[in-house]
């Protein structure tokens, strides 16, 4: 809401401003949406003067349309697709995480959301040699697990240390700290994290529901507005800095007992792509405890409801390959 100020455009002088304020026109919106003839009569100003002022203000404050071709050119030059490192997930995501968009992973407790986030962070830091920002609100970030995953990708300790240095972590436990962190990143933090090779290409927030869900519902309404503020901050960061944003969410049960992503309908419009993770519940799974099933719940590029199975122990291999096993390396494989 831009307030009308003196000197904002030629012709808007102190006297005119005073008479406009007396007629209860304080902001640009008020002036532009009011009837010029009416205002001219009330403030005893010439109709033409007001018309010209209105035209100048409109020109100053309008957004300009861009043609589809220009937009396409811009997208081609600025969007990157980051592979997650897991071929099954890449298939679901149409070859990977797109920069400029928010992708959401939801699942129940123990379904593997944090593991997928670790896998993505390790892959981007090590293979793609880009920096990653990891915002952890669940306390589940274990650097030794990141190291384990890196040790299955390479044996070189220097490379492992380099990759670990490219992952910048924040640990926050309430929504105001999260907003503070996101605004800080937008206003210069992302440039600072560029040190050490590779610009920041991905921001992972694990999880966004842990800090927002306690505020929703109840008598106070600020929960919803805080959620939308977080969403707006994430979206502007994704678009302005060309980063891929990956967030995790919890699940709730709908009335019919079906599992659905949490945070409600308002949040469901924010991410462009949504994936639901669940454990594979079969009796024969005792020997493969890392099996998970991912379902595409929302996508603007692929048909929904496609499912892909993958194994958390074998992150980078489609089949075969070294397990990135979730246990200490000095133990023998089964």
């Amino acid at each position, binding site marked *: 809401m831009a307030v009308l100020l003196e000197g904002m455009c030629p*012709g808007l002088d102190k006297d005119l401003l005073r008479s406009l304020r007396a007629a209860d026109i304080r902001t640009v919106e008020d002036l532009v949406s009011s009837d010029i003839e009416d205002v001219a009569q009330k403030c005893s100003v010439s109709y*033409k003067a007001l018309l010209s002022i209105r035209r*100048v203000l409109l020109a100053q404050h309008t957004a300009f349309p861009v043609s589809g071709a220009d937009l396409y050119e811009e997208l081609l030059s600025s969007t990157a697709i980051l592979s997650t490192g897991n071929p099954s997930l890449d298939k679901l995501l149409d070859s990977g995480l797109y920069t400029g968009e928010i992708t959401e992973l939801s699942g129940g407790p123990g379904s593997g959301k944090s593991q997928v986030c670790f896998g993505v962070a390790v892959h981007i830091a090590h293979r793609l040699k880009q920096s990653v920002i*990891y915002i952890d609100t669940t306390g*589940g970030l*274990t*650097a*030794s697990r990141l190291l384990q995953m890196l040790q299955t990708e390479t044996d070189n300790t220097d490379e492992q240390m380099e990759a670990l240095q490219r992952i910048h972590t924040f640990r926050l436990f309430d929504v105001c700290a999260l907003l503070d962190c996101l605004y800080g990143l937008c206003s210069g933090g992302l440039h600072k994290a560029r040190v050490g090779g590779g610009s920041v290409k991905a921001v992972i927030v694990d999880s966004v529901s842990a800090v927002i869900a306690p505020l929703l519902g109840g008598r106070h309404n600020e929960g919803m507005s805080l959620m939308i503020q977080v969403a707006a901050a994430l979206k502007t960061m994704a678009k302005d800095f060309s980063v891929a944003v990956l967030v995790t969410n919890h699940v709730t049960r709908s009335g019919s007992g079906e599992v659905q992503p949490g945070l409600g309908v308002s949040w469901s419009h924010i991410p462009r792509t949504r994936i639901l993770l669940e454990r594979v519940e079969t009796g024969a799974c005792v020997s493969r405890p890392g099996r998970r099933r991912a379902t595409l719940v929302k996508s603007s590029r692929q048909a929904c409801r496609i499912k892909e199975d993958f194994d958390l122990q074998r992150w980078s291999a489609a089949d075969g390959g070294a397990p990135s096993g*979730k246990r200490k390396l000095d133990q023998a494989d089964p």
Partner: protein
Amino acid sequence: MTLQIENVIRSVWIWFWCFFGSTVLVPHQGSSSRWTQGRSIKNVEEALEALQAARTGEGGASVTALELLQKEEEFGSIVTFSSRLDEALGGGIPVGKVTEICGAPGVGKTQLCLQLAVDVQVPPCFGGLGGQVIFVDTEGSFQLQRVVDLAGAAVRHCSLLAEDEEQRVAMTTFSVETILSNIFLVRCRDYVELLAELHLLPDFLRDRPKLRLLVVDSVAFPFLRLHDDLSQRTRLLQGLGLQLIATATRHSIAVVITNHMTTRLRGGQSQLVPALGDVWGHAPSIRLLLQWEESRRLASIVKSPGHMDATVQYQITCEGFRDADQSEQLQSKRPRIQTDQ
């Protein structure tokens, strides 16, 4: 005549400004500030400076994963005296994370908590943390005599292992009396007292830097009575979960909580699942499920960011929480020393 000319001149002037004004002012938003008075720009700059100064640097600094790894390696973990469980957990209950122990009544949750309360005090030269513990009891299940038994067994165990001078010196400060004096017991009768206690915890922790373990036994009991407003219960639980995680991370302590089991009906079948719902399931980082299988007691890791799902067997003896197969073989249950790994 002159009036007409004046009007013409004025309209030409206005037309000129409209034309040029729109082309000059449009390109960037910042140029509109050119038309504001000098004092407005100064006000905006002053406001920005004041905001920057007011921002505290709490969430500002990022930590690279390498630094986080170094910090984690310093923390260590709390042994459970069951070597198989310690092995599955990579050393024991990790410090800095929230661990949940859930199980049916009588399977040994409180026993494990009491064991951990004794184990955290084992001196560092034996592989423990030498820290204090605060035990928040909501069910009234804390039995002092049992703690005395466990403490006695731990002291005997460590005195048998004392080999060098340092360990013998440490044994002089590790006795049943000192163990009991390092356990702070808080009794909470309902959820309000529990929330209040956790709220006051940071001040308590500030005065006691040696505190390494917080046990809440159990977190489900006060909340299971809140039937009438389930959404309020959910919100309270989520806030509680966040607070526990924040305490664990900021003060580098291990948080252990116990939970009950409840029945969930799916289709025609019933299944035992941890209580308090899926929403609460996201709060703890590590979840240990204790269950009965015929006459055996099994401990399974069902959720952990750093460990694979595993199941081990354990038993509760008069000495406390121990491995299943081996009987009273004390030498084999040596707590893991960090330098071994």
